[in-house]
């Protein structure tokens, strides 16, 4: 698998997120309190809210628009809500972060 370097884990605050701009939209990269890193589309399955702007708790994020809670591991809405957002493989090598290239390319193609 090919990986694209997107920066360092230290670029993202703990319990926070940053975005990576891609041709088909933003991908939100999350860093949890215990330094797990996840990548999902920055687009809530409910009304398209920017998930990267939400409050990160455990391995989940609460959407800033209407408080849907999305699992960072599976991309699925938690609780009573139903919906799923695409997850993108992300690799941590030391401090450096890589996004899975093929996942992007396949979408771009």
């Amino acid at each position: 698998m090919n990986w694209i370097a997107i920066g360092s884990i230290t670029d993202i605050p703990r319990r926070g997120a940053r975005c990576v701009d891609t041709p088909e939209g933003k991908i939100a990269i999350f860093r949890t309190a215990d330094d797990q890193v996840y990548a999902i589309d920055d687009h809530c399955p409910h009304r398209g809210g920017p998930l990267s702007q939400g409050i990160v708790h455990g391995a989940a994020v609460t959407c800033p628009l209407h408080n849907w809670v999305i699992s960072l591991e599976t991309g699925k809405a938690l609780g009573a809500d139903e919906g799923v957002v695409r997850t993108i493989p992300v690799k941590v090598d030391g401090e450096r972060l890589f996004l899975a290239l093929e996942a992007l390319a396949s979408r771009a193609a």
Partner: protein
Amino acid sequence: MTEKLVIIGNGMAPGRMLEHLLEKAPGRYQVTIFNAEPRVNYDRIMLSPVLSGEKDYEEIIIHGDGWYIKHEITLYKGHKIVVIDRQAKTVTSDHGVSEPYDKLVIATGSVPFIIPVPGNNLPGVLTYRDLDDVRAMMLAAQSRAKAVVIGGGLLGLEAAAGLNAQGMDVTVLHVMPTLMERQLDPAAGYLLQRAVEERGIKVITKANTQAITGNGKVEQIELADGTIIPATLVVMAVGIRPNAALAKEAGIAVNRGIVVDAGMRSNDPDIFALGECAEVNGMVYGLVAPLYEMARVAASQLAGDEAAAFVHSDTPTKLKVTGIELFSLGDFAEGEDRQEIVLRDAAAGVYKRLVLRDDRIIGTVLYGETGDGAWFNDLKKKQTDISEMRDTLIFGQSYQGGAPLDPMAAVAALPDDAEICGCNGVCKGKITGAITAKGLTSLDDVRAHTKASASCGSCTGLVEKLMVLTIGDKYNPATVQPMCGCTTLGHDEVRRLIKAKGLKTIPAVMQELEWITSCGCAKCRPALNYYLVCDWPDDYADDYQSRFVNERVHANIQKDGTYSVVPRMWGGVTNAAELRAIADVVDKFEIPMVKVTGGQRIDMLGIRKEDLPAVWADLGQAGFVSGHAYAKGLRTVKTCVGSDWCRFGTQDSTGLGIRIEKFMWGSWTPAKVKMAVSGCPRNCAEATCKDVGVICVDSGYEIHFAGAAGLDIKGTEVLGLVKTEDEALEHIVALTQMYREQGRYLERIYKWAKRIGIPEIKRQIMDDADKRKAYYERFVFSQKFAQVDPWSERVSGKDKHEFRPMASVGFAEAAE
């Protein structure tokens, strides 16, 4: 045929006896109770939380009026029995009611000991015994500033903490060298004294009171060493003595208390005594556990079980002062045949001491961390040989045999006969058995069926853990609405504990208050962040990751993920230069929508997040600062043109509005705060539907609050009329600070006011100048740290990462 049972006194002991009796011999007796207090049976142990304001009287009632009706018991409230005629077998009350008896139970309790010094009968000298005393203290706390509590024992310290919580300046006088010397060794007494002093309560030990003096009421206390302490309220809490006078007059054998045998029977076989007035085997008792044991025995005897007998047992002592953990049990005096194990952790404020004899625990003092109290109590009760685990004994149950247990596992590991509720002598097996057998799902149910945690309540946490262990998710924890799914605590408890335990970070709150989740959720984190910002303005570092996005990026997120920006226009006043700057910004950044807000300022909508710092930079050049239109904080102060322009204006409403806004901007509040100032009662600024509003009148400024014009519509309440602009500002600031300190996160002022009560708010802000001043000063202090323009900070580079993408990935890279 039913026999007539008369009970003199309606405290906790006879109340419990009746419960047992109704269970063991229903219908055997026709019961009549005479209560000198004009009320039903309530939990006297919980008076301290009532005094500190943590509970209401209604919450501590054990048997409501309905209970007496249901069981066909006649209760004479406010009737004091003055005569027992043993020949005629009747009692007579001070209101002239006579009642014959077949069996009589005397439960007259105790009377507080009044130290024999001059002035001990002056108005302002109180004891701490019943609800009337508590009400008198709470009343005194309203208007009087200085209180002295004589007695540094359990009761005295609880009284002191309660009065302190009511806002009084409290000094404790204790005649011995260390506090609670009957329950604590000197080391623990010292730690306790330090903790008490940290709350702002002064402690004077070896204090020998010589006189209480004053002109018609208490003014000061004089000590034997010549020290003079000013005081307007004196509470005597130096001890109690059995109230046996009535029995003595009736010719019943009385020593220290009413002498009874192990069956609670006096020397008159038809007369029983129990509770604090009874003396059994030469001992009198004041803690609830032995009194309940007496109740059980007396009920059995009355039901015909003549074998029932009272057996002495040691009772653990706990102090009911929020934030002070203390446990003491048994005998801890030093002696040649005894060894001790001591653990001190000064940094954590923990002190533990076990006193051993022949490898068995005979006494325990725990301070700062009392979780193992139940386990040590169990080891002592069973006289377990501890030689095998001696090295790790003091570290508690979790260290015995392998890895430390979490609190839940520690409870799971307790044996079935381990005592959980000391007050009521309820063991683990009885609780779990009742939960399973009766299908109990709420704490109240468990209390009703087992009595566990139904008295002092300090074992509530243990009982709740047992419920979770037994029924898991079916446990329905709270009548209090918890903050969120991460905790069982409600907002008020969390706020109280943050202050009481001095918790200054979100991880500390979650650790100490046993959050269920590792890092909270989107509900509790912003709330905790606000509480910490409010309570520790100088110490706490704002946790941006716990703020909702609007407060993190200082703009309002819109449905398409863009933001809107509202600069401050003080009092709604602007000028050509400002308007020109806004117009330029709108052109430069191609801002699609410009809108005048309801709060008299201008909103620019549709700004891309990346552009925010540049927009702010340009606005800042023109002198604009953030309008906090996104904040749970002060938003706008809307004004009319007032006496400067309006022919009806009575005061400079515009000037006052601007002054308030400049004074209060930047402050965080539980929910948004919108204000307005109208220059006359025509009220063009619509001040009477705002969180806080002012209506100017000829004679001054009428301050309004608790209005709403959103989800709910509600006109304001009048706080009061003040004469000058300075006073208006002070009152408004104090009111806001009171709300900041007491409001629940996201609770608007009108909801908070409804919960607290308008009269109480008026009392604190309008009538109590000291309190108002103190609120005002705390607000001013916190503003030192709050009045920083967040926009200019970000223009200077703060939180850069917020406004830039981490990386951009093009097609070329993706295709490589």
